[in-house]
């Protein structure tokens, strides 16, 4: 395995590390290139150095892997135009693919990302048909009221319910009863009348998500979605996208899996090892 540091992008202001096998395959373009996208503001090594380990494992399997920083993150310089960050990240992902196409002759790509990086990976997959597969790890969900309510209910159901201190606060009238009632009412309504409850999610969010999934299916783009404990992505997609989401799973376009006992950034060493195994097996 060998690594090369490079400057990429139209302005050569993005910093990246190219990882590849020391004995490159006779036809390197036979395998898709792999891009690892920033997990939020964490620089290109990834949370807990996960991207470094992943890049080196994939390179040993014969893949060419690029981990790099979006503008304003890690080692990369700031962006000089006014393009909104959501668009600039997709743009820079495409620039990175252009770089690998020019330098290594690669024409197909696998995008991988944790948290916000997963969001960028899915948007870039929709925007660019060079993306044949994507790995979304704990994808960040939109900041909507529905997601906020899901998080609160999940907290109460999975954690507060089993926490003696939460019960004490409830009995001592230190909890917000109005909040609790609203959350319970919403949750009951969501289960009994799911279509009605969907009205609280902005229609453009729903339509965008459904359209994106349709596009990915039409292009035969395969997705691996990995969820840690407490992640609500699978439930959210089920509810918002509807039966189409389950169909995508049944037909093999989407594969979903859970990490045994991991947090959002996959901190425990055992979870890191599990994640690396899951991703490298799926890619192989």
């Amino acid at each position, binding site marked *: 395995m060998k690594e090369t*540091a490079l400057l990429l992008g139209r302005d050569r202001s993005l910093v990246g590390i190219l990882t590849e096998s020391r004995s490159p395959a006779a036809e390197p373009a036979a395998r898709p290139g792999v891009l690892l996208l920033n997990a939020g503001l964490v620089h290109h090594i990834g949370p807990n150095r996960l991207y470094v380990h992943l890049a080196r494992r994939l390179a040993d399997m014969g893949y060419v892997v690029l981990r790099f920083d979006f503008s304003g993150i890690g080692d990369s310089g700031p962006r000089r135009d006014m393009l909104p960050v959501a668009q600039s990240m997709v743009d820079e992902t495409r620039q990175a693919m252009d770089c690998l196409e020019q330098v290594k002759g690669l024409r197909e790509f696998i995008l991988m990302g944790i948290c916000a990086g997963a969001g960028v990976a899915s948007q870039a997959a929709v925007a660019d048909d060079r993306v044949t597969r994507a790995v979304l790890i704990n994808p960040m969900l939109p900041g909507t009221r529905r997601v906020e309510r899901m998080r609160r209910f999940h907290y109460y159901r999975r954690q507060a319910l089993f926490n003696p201190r939460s019960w004490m606060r409830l009995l001592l009238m230190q909890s917000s009863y109005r909040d609790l009632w609203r959350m319970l009412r919403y949750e009951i309504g969501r289960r009994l009348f799911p279509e009605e409850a969907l009205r609280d999610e902005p229609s453009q969010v729903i339509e965008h998500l459904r359209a994106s999934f349709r596009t990915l299916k039409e292009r035969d783009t395969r997705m691996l979605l990995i969820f840690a404990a407490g992640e609500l992505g699978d439930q959210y997609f089920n509810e918002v996208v509807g039966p189409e989401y389950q169909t995508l799973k049944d037909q093999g376009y989407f594969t979903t899996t859970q990490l045994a006992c991991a947090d959002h950034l996959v*901190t425990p060493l055992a979870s890191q090892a599990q994640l690396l195994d899951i991703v490298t097996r799926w890619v192989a």
Partner: protein
Amino acid sequence: MHNPEATPPPTDIDPFFFGAAPRLLYGCLHRPPAGAAREGGVVICSPVGQEYVRAHRALYQLAVRLAQGGLATLRFDYSGCGDSMGMFEDNGLDQWTEDVQAAAGVLQFRSGARQVWLVGLRLGAALALQAAAAGAPVAGMVLWEPVLRGGRYLEQLADTQRRFIVWLGSLCHRSVNELISSEEVMGYPLTPTLHRQLAGLSPETLGRPFTAPMLTVSNSNDDPDGLESFARSQAGGEFERLADHKPWIEELYKRLIPVTTIERIAEWILRRHP
């Protein structure tokens, strides 16, 4: 006095690997604008583990500021850390001290800098002191919230790990005893060797007194580790307490840059360069 409203001149950034395989280290050299280079250069010695990740962009901003002032500045990753080769668990303080020395040499070679200054943040400050004590030709040093007492540092790490495990256990309904391990801290392995080396860190073991200019900066309200007395015990030592963000412990989604501290460190070093 640096005018923050002025448009800063552009600086170059040069990412590269250095050293000899298999111990290649990753570095980023920030070059001054053309025609503005001074004689000295700076090596930034970063913290380790989660503190390294959280402080990463703040140290990038410090490097940009120093380069804008005319000092070639090298940020780099220790063996087994960041983008450098190797596994974290195969390395420790001794190797990382050697890495600081190697970085100082590479800075001089690649930039032509005649003098090398070290800026160390947290454990990076301890490594900077050890490198200077081991003979690295250091013209001056800034210690930013240095880890001087390894025992207390280990206690803080253990406390953070335990709180994380309690929270994780409540999330996935596992007991603390099932999840807790003495051999990892917040996503990084803590080997018995590294534990022993950290436990042995103290002002007494951190090498001979440093006679060149040294500034110790603290962003804390209290001083349980005796940073001020350590700083003033050094021949050229100065101490400053600055109210500012602590980038090494900020939440990852916040990225609050300690502008006051960065500006003060840069100003202190630049004032000592012709």
